[in-house]
């Protein structure tokens, strides 16, 4: 049947076919088109629209940062040739000469100052990278100086994802600020982009496809050989995998673990895998005197370390790795991943699993001989196999008498439920799954500050410590780590603080999920550990 239809279509639409052939022929000859897909679309072309890895990495192909990360996530010069601290509260950045925007205008220090201020301005989602910043100013034609309120040794790391825009372009198109949700008008920069990067935006159809083309006037020597890049969001994982097998796309980002094995068997496909810097973990409500969602009344079982230990040591992350994750995970006992500054391999050992009787005994000692019931919050579209991991946890805890009621929901609803409120009141959860990566700084302090320190509305520490784990000793150490510049001393403190939360069973780190990408055999690309995907490393054979 298919053949018949094809034939009749072929003839009756010959004219149309000729017409469109003209369109597509124009680009062929030596064209290297790279088609790739992801589950979701880039939410905006504005580089400051949202602080999320995918948007930042996608837009970095068009807008380049002052300092970029290489294949190994090390900092290297991009639009800044030189940078550093002239004194503890002053940073300088020397702007690379001779760089041109896609429209041919040269890059100046004014553009950099404008961009940084825009990133710190209304509508921007990048404000958290500017907490320490006092002033940004131009010093001469090719230097930008930043003064900070207090010494901020990590400023350069934070800004390594911040793309630089053209002041003139933004002003001409009335896009001096990022899109403002409160005004009913569109921001030009939401669907248009014009930077200095290796690729230029040719066509943007939100939710449908985004086409980039090579920037022939790029300042750097291209390591890619692409002339055109077509990005399509394909939300259904099965379709994405099928499209790759069928050769309709050249590469897919975020392959479902279940499909990695079968993709490896495909002759024309290769699978790339590596650990991600994000750690997926479970957290307890250790703050409320009585759990929100439990049959235990009048007390909070998770305040008892024995309960936390029993649970921690009953979760078999290796089994989760084998079946749920199909081998695509790296079990851990720490809240940071290898590759993050402050990761301590010697401490990354999970305590031995308990037999159910042993765990039950711990629970009995804590006063719960018959176990108890508790609700578990879990996203179902945020982390790889998040919901299935939670299901497995439910099964494992059932064996020690802890009846877990799983509530898995889509990310927006899930985050709304579990995260702390604006006044840092605890989130509406008793037991939850979360993932965290210190993606801006690649330093463990970010983890301490956001997740492990006691929530404090005054200092803004512990904003994402949803369950309110608290250890004053650790709080003090973490504050010292922030200021300490001596690496040896700092590492020692980090080790000490790490040991504290490990011994407290404050969290249950599960694993780093693997970053699994798959591509056609004729594609060469680089897979950094932070799951960013710079197109400048892609070549098509």
């Amino acid at each position, binding site marked *: 049947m298919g053949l018949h239809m094809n034939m009749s279509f072929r003839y009756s639409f010959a004219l149309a076919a000729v017409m469109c052939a003209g369109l597509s022929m124009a680009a062929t000859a030596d064209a290297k088109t790279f088609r790739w897909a992801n589950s979701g679309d880039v939410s905006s072309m504005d580089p400051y629209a949202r602080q999320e890895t995918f948007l930042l990495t996608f837009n970095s192909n068009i807008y380049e940062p002052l300092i970029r990360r290489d294949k190994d996530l090390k900092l290297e010069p991009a639009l800044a040739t030189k940078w550093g601290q002239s004194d503890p509260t002053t940073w300088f950045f020397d702007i690379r000469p001779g760089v041109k925007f896609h429209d041919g205008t040269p890059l100046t220090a004014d553009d950099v100052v404008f961009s940084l201020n825009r990133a710190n301005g209304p509508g921007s989602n990048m404000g958290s990278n500017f907490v320490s910043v006092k002033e940004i100013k131009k010093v001469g034609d090719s230097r930008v100086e930043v003064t900070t309120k207090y010494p901020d040794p990590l400023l350069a790391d934070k800004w390594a994802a911040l793309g630089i825009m053209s002041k003139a372009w933004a002003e001409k198109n009335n896009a001096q600020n990022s899109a403002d949700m409160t005004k009913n008008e*569109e921001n030009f920069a939401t669907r248009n982009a014009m930077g200095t990067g290796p690729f230029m935006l040719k066509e943007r*159809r939100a939710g449908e496809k985004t086409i980039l083309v090579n920037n022939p006037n790029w300042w750097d020597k291209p390591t890619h050989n692409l002339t055109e890049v077509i990005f399509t969001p394909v939300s*259904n994982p099965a*379709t994405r995998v099928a*499209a790759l097998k069928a050769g309709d796309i050249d590469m897919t980002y975020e392959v479902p673990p279940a499909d990695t094995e079968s993709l490896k068997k495909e002759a024309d496909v290769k699978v790339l895998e590596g650990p991600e810097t994000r750690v997926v973990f479970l957290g307890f409500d250790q703050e409320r005197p009585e759990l929100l969602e439990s049959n235990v009344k009048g007390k909070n079982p998770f305040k008892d370390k024995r309960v936390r230990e029993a649970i921690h040591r009953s979760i078999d992350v290796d089994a989760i790795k084998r079946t749920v994750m199909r081998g695509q995970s790296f079990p851990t006992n720490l809240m940071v991943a290898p590759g993050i500054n402050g990761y301590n391999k010697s401490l990354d050992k999970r305590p031995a699993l308990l037999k159910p009787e042993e765990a039950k005994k711990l629970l009995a000692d804590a006063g719960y001989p018959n176990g108890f019931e508790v609700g578990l919050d879990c996203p179902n579209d945020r982390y790889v196999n998040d919901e299935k991991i939670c299901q497995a946890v439910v099964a494992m805890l059932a064996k020690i008498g802890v009846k877990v009621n799983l509530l898995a929901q889509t990310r927006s609803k899930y985050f709304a439920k579990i995260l702390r409120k604006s006044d840092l009141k605890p989130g509406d959860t008793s037991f939850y799954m979360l993932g965290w990566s210190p993606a801006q700084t690649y330093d463990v302090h970010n983890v301490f500050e956001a997740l492990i320190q006691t929530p404090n509305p005054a200092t803004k520490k512990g904003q994402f410590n949803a369950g309110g784990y608290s250890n004053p000793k650790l709080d003090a150490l973490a504050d010292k780590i922030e200021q300490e510049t001596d690496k040896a001393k700092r590492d020692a403190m980090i080790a000490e603080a790490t040991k504290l939360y490990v011994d407290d069973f404050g969290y249950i780190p599960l694993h780093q999920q693997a970053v699994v990408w798959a591509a056609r055999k004729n594609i060469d690309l680089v897979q950094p550990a932070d799951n960013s995907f710079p197109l400048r490393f892609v070549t098509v054979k």
Partner: protein
Amino acid sequence: MLAFILRRLLQSIAVLLTVGLVAFSLFRYVGDPINAMVGQDTSMEDREALREKLGLNDPAPIQFFHFIVNAAQGKFGLSYRTSEPVGRLIAERIPATLELSFCAAVFALFVGVPMGVYTGLYPRHWSSRLFQAVSLIGISLPTFLIGILLILVFAVWLRLLPSFGRGDTVMIGWWSTGFLTWSGLKALILPSITLGMFQLTLLMRLVRSEMLEVMRADYIKFARARGLTNRAINFGHALKNTLVPVITVTGLQLGALIAFAIVTETVFAWPGVGQLFIQSVQFSDVPVMAAYLLLIGLLFVLINLAVDLLYFVVDPRLRSQGGSARVAGH
């Protein structure tokens, strides 16, 4: 006739207002849009400030009033998720959905109706029974499974058709069409079949039972007694009399197709309003969801109007009665 259309238009406005109320008041409370708008790392103060600026702390009736006033002007605000104007997001996506729904409807009609006629004329023939059993597959397997199986067979194994997307599209004004390119046409085949399968089954079964019914009618017997040819009887007399219910159902199903496209579009990464809607649900993107529901309401109103007008063309009884809506009994 004019009075009838006027009455219908008034009813339509009432329907649209109701749908608007539903659209707005329901989704106002789904999830927290702030979480969709900002990254996970955004500070609590920023979140609260944004909430205040968006008017999410206003009383609901005031929000609804603003919503209706703006909607009437085609302003649905900016999408929380992509910060693009909702009106344009929808306008960009609607051609994809309409073309897909249209092809699915054509597929369902041009396969379903002849199959229904055949099985209705020869109900006892083995091939009729076969058709009927096979057609049941259309309602025995979930759409998403049919879709993915079609992809596996025709895209992955046979490599005949694309696995997803619309192929190349051509812009005619603001309308992007896949009808003018070879790849666009090829891309339409699998999704149309997937989407139309259910409707095909429905139509076939409807036409069959209507045919069975009509073939027993006295005027068919009288037509036979007048010695008319089978061709004239089956297609001239019988089929035309099954048209009224078929038009009703096709009209309603066209609305359903657009809504059912949610699933098909998700499976085939078809950039239509259905996919936009489901993404919006996941992100609690209220403006888009509300606009989508209003759009469905509007399409419903238009389709119903068209169906009513078609009745006039098909059924002379209505023409003289001055149009009291539907024929009784269907």
